[in-house]
């Protein structure tokens, strides 16, 4: 019991320390005159939102979606297409990003959740590939070359072109999304999702229409990833079908597992860890994937519990 207590303190410390670091980071980068890092960490936080959203269905729901990048793309195109027609209203774009992602997730989920296991993995991948090719076929919006966008406008005084402002904007959304996801998984709804993961038949036997619950979780997850896509479109001011490339979906899975599935905080750490590793390795050699690929195999074989798992009790917990 004391051990569990210590671990809880460690986790709480990690989360608070992370928050503090993120809060003061723009001041530090300004002090050492390296403004580049603000954009870099903004990018980390955007992927953290995406990874945390995937954890809802992967870690808690046991749904291995190999197509989560679809919603990054949908969120991105919500910015790009409105911006293309000169509509830069952020509220509208964000609403469309969220609702559009949720709607597409409902459609894809309705088909995918009829299946399970291998089928589920392959079908989520296939549908995202479909959206990827759809993006390529949209000549109007640049096809596979992509399309330039403006940053969204919310209200007077919130200038997203300012790196620091945009940083805190993303930071705020990250906090909202993570807290929201924590609320969801702790709620009765979240319990049903986890229950369906461990024993779907039993959950149905005691009267829960688990299909509906899982479908809604799938849609919530997609909607939150749509927010990440919206932010990514704003950050890069450029949206291409590459947002939805299958390897992006794979990377999101890696982030979640690297951080620790079923923890919400873990994937946030995992996203930062993954992107830092990518930055670091690719600065060493252009053939960094030669080392990164096999290290994924090693991660799976030997460190399955992820970074956040290091400060979580070993047995009996969460699972």
């Amino acid at each position, binding site marked *: 019991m004391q051990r569990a207590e210590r671990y809880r303190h460690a986790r709480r410390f990690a989360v608070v320390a992370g928050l503090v670091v993120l809060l003061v980071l723009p001041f530090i980068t300004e002090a050492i005159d390296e403004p580049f890092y603000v954009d870099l960490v903004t990018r980390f936080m955007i992927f953290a939102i995406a990874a945390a959203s995937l954890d809802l269905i*992967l870690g808690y729901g046991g749904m*291995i979606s*190999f197509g989560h990048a679809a919603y990054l793309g949908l969120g991105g195109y919500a910015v790009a297409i409105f911006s293309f027609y000169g509509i830069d209203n952020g509220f509208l774009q964000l609403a469309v990003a969220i609702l559009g992602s949720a709607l597409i997730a409902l459609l894809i989920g309705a*088909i995918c959740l*009829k*299946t399970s*296991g*291998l*089928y589920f*993995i*392959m*079908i989520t*991948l*296939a*549908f995202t*590939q*479909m959206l990827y*090719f*759809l993006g*390529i*076929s*949209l*000549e*109007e919006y640049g096809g596979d070359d992509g399309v330039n966008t403006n940053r969204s406008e919310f209200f007077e005084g919130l200038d997203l072109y300012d790196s620091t402002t945009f940083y805190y904007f993303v930071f705020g959304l990250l906090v909202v999304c993570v807290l929201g996801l924590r609320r969801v998984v702790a709620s009765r709804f979240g319990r049903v999702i986890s229950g369906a993961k461990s024993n779907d038949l039993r959950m149905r036997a005691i009267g829960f229409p688990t299909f509906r619950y899982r479908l809604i979780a799938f849609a919530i997850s997609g909607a939150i990833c749509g927010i990440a896509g919206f932010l990514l479109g704003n950050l890069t001011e450029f949206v291409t079908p590459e947002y939805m490339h*299958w*390897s992006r979906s*794979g990377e999101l*899975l*890696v982030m979640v*597992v690297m951080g620790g*599935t079923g923890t919400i905080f873990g994937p946030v750490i995992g996203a930062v860890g993954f992107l830092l590793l990518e930055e670091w390795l690719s600065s060493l050699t252009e*053939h*960094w*994937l*030669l080392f*990164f*690929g*096999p*290290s*994924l*195999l090693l*991660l*799976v*074989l030997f460190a*399955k519990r992820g970074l956040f798992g290091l400060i979580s009790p070993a047995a009996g917990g969460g699972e």
Partner: protein
Amino acid sequence: MGLPLILEQTLNGVQFGVFLFLIAAGLTLIFGIMNLVNLVHGSLYMMGAYFAAVAYQWSGSFLVALGVALPALFIVGIVLEMVALRTLYQRDHLDQVLATFGLILFFNQLMIFVFGPASQEMNLPQGLEGHVEIISGAPYPTYRLAIIATGLAVALSLYYLIARTRAGMLIRAGASNRTMIAALGVNIRLLFTGIFGLGAALAGLSGAMAGPILSVEPGMGEDMLILSFVVIVIGGIGSVQGALVASIIVGVVETLGRSIIPFLLERIISNEAAQTAGPAITSMMIYILMAAVLFFRPRGLFPAKGG
């Protein structure tokens, strides 16, 4: 849009289906029997193409290229199974996805590291460069006909292997009840390694034959891999017969649709709208087909027994 064009596009579709079948056949056996999500299979196709292209550049003979690529891939498959994938059979699907995802990244980069980022050249084999006039006014490349013939021959041999031989009996038994045949004293690890080697060689054959008509470059395997997934989902996991039927369907729909749909749309809606909607619809078609099949037959057209 006349009959010759439709015939040509249909044959192109069948030929594309053969490429898919050669990948999907091994993949579906590995999914069905070993319950392994194997993303590396697309990389095996890519390596088959690379080995063939390099052997071709060195020897100038397509037969030598095939003679190098097939055994090489058989060995690569066996080594890969013994070194990396064997440890994954007992793991859950998520682990398998991540580990084999890592291997894809590795193999793609390995090809860039060894052969450079440019695509490799490979010519049509001697004697098959010409055209055959199937019906008057519709000349068709001999090489593509040879691919179709090879695909059918492989399908027949696989059928013979699985339905008529002792090894095939073990494969079928393994698919329906792994534990039982292990208990009966069959060396299931050896069987798995053998199946993996066979699947790798077939993917390699597909890659080698694709060499002269598609560009041999890193990442060429992934699009084929994802299409093979669609094939397997439509055909039913574990069913080679299903893989054959579904790959021909997917190949024909994908290829024929690209020429027919824009043509039909132009008739129905305005020319301008057709030019926008046509590519969008054709690019989504096989996925819609997959969704439709799943809706009516959730386990595919030819669900494998057991498993």
